[in-house]
């Protein structure tokens, strides 16, 4: 690990201000992704700003009847929160399908959203990777790509976003709230928060340098059945090959978002309107522009069957 200096922030604005004055500074929350990558020197911040203990660990009701989830709320606490279990079961289920008990006790809302890809070449510092080293090339194209994206990818990068939580937040129409060094607050709809890789796969979100996530808000409960199905190589403690998060109403209408298929949680709103006609038309719409590799074309079939299972469960 490269040397860095360490400092505790005293407030959200103080954290953003500190990050802006020190080039190479990063926030640290749970540390479960950042430290992992720092040990491999894939990330090498010169300065760490600890954002634990600045009051961002609360879950509150919003005036609109929704929920405001602090950026530092641990994944365990979010999954177990009474209102989340009752009204946003999809979010609880997605969180509980991720990582392990130990990791969820540390992992935070913001850190989970900002976790980086699990593309094997991103982790292997001996190999070219445009995301890790812009302009060096993409080893995954023509390489081992079983885990990687089938839709929304680019000739520069075919990585996926690994978060389960983000899939649920996408289906729930969450909004990411931030503050910058000047104290300016922003609200970014989850649909616009993560970027597609395009020509700059190293730029992953809409955040500006030093901008701090303060909370994620959920609109008032949508009702319906909340189902999250994750398909992985072992039954627990593994990342998704594909996942489906859905909210299905009594009349069969609803919404659906996919994980494990793209650089961001994948939802195409017009596809929701096809839900009553079954899994096939929905997936055909969602993956209309899919360009799977020879190694991961199985994901197209797998995700359709997973959605079919979700819809069967919703009807049951």
């Amino acid at each position, binding site marked *: 690990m*490269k040397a860095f200096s360490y400092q505790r922030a005293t407030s959200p604005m103080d954290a953003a201000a500190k990050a802006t004055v020190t080039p190479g500074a990063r926030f640290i929350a749970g540390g479960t992704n950042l430290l992992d990558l720092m040990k491999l020197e894939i990330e090498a911040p010169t300065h760490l700003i600890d954002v634990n*203990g600045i009051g961002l660990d609360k879950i509150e009701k919003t005036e609109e009847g929704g929920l405001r989830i602090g950026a530092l709320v641990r994944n365990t606490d979010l999954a*177990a929160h009474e209102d989340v279990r009752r009204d946003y079961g999809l979010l609880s289920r997605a969180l*509980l399908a991720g990582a*392990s*008990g130990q990791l969820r006790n540390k992992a935070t809302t913001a850190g989970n959203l900002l976790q980086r890809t699990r593309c094997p070449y991103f982790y292997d510092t001996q190999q070219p990777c445009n995301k890790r080293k812009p302009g060096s090339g993409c080893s995954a194209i023509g390489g081992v790509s079983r885990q990687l994206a089938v839709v929304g990818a680019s000739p520069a990068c075919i990585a996926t976003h690994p978060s389960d939580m983000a899939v649920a937040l996408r289906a729930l129409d969450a909004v990411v709230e931030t503050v910058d060094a000047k104290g300016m607050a922003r609200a970014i709809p989850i649909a616009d928060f993560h970027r597609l890789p395009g020509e700059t796969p190293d730029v992953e979100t809409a955040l500006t340098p030093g901008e701090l996530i303060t909370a994620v808000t959920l609109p008032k409960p949508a009702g319906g059945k909340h189902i999250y199905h994750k398909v992985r190589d072992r*039954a*627990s403690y593994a990342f998704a090959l594909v996942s489906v998060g859905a909210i299905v109403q009594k009349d069969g209408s609803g919404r659906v978002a996919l994980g494990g298929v793209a650089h961001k949680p994948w939802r195409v709103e017009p596809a929701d309107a096809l839900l009553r006609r079954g899994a096939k038309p929905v997936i055909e719409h969602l993956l209309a522009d899919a360009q799977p590799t020879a190694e991961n074309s199985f994901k197209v079939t797998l995700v359709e069957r997973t959605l079919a299972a979700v819809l069967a469960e919703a009807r049951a």
Partner: protein
Amino acid sequence: MQALEENGVSRRGVLIAGAGVIAATAAPGAEAQPMPQATVPVSFEVNGERRELTLDARTTLLDALREHLRLTGTKKGCDHGQCGACTVIVDGRRINSCLTLAVMHEGAKITTIEGLGRPDRLHPLQAAFVKHDGYQCGYCTPGQICSAVAMLDELKAGLPSHVSETLTERPQATDAELRERMSGNICRCGAYSNIQEAIREVAGVRA
């Protein structure tokens, strides 16, 4: 829940010791600049004893325990959050001590395998692991036991898991629940069935 919250504002603020000391770590190409030296004082309680350390900020909690405090019961398996060998209990919660910095735990109460019981007075889970032969090489065992202790508290507190049938009813100590909740602890020797026997005895699962 968060250690740093407990003592409030007084402990917060800049914690860079010896700011202004030249460190030879300037980025190549960059002009040599005075950099804050990256050692940080931290104090926490380990197994009921107050410990004060001044550490390179890079020191993980795992390395602080093993290399600085010589508490070598906690093991380093993967050092990347993938095996659970380094599991310790911090402020009542199990975490992977390899993926957290020691300096992030100012004021925390840390329990390691050494603090759970003693050879002459074993923790019930330690005794159950002995009785059921819940290990072969023993390398994953301290992590398994620390994890299981905190896991049973999570279950008692009614926290849901991936295999819980509903999110609204209290989860029960079933075999499926125990297995899922212990999935963050890998045993390279594959002693899982005996580990499961030990934990289910303490959890009171009936056959």
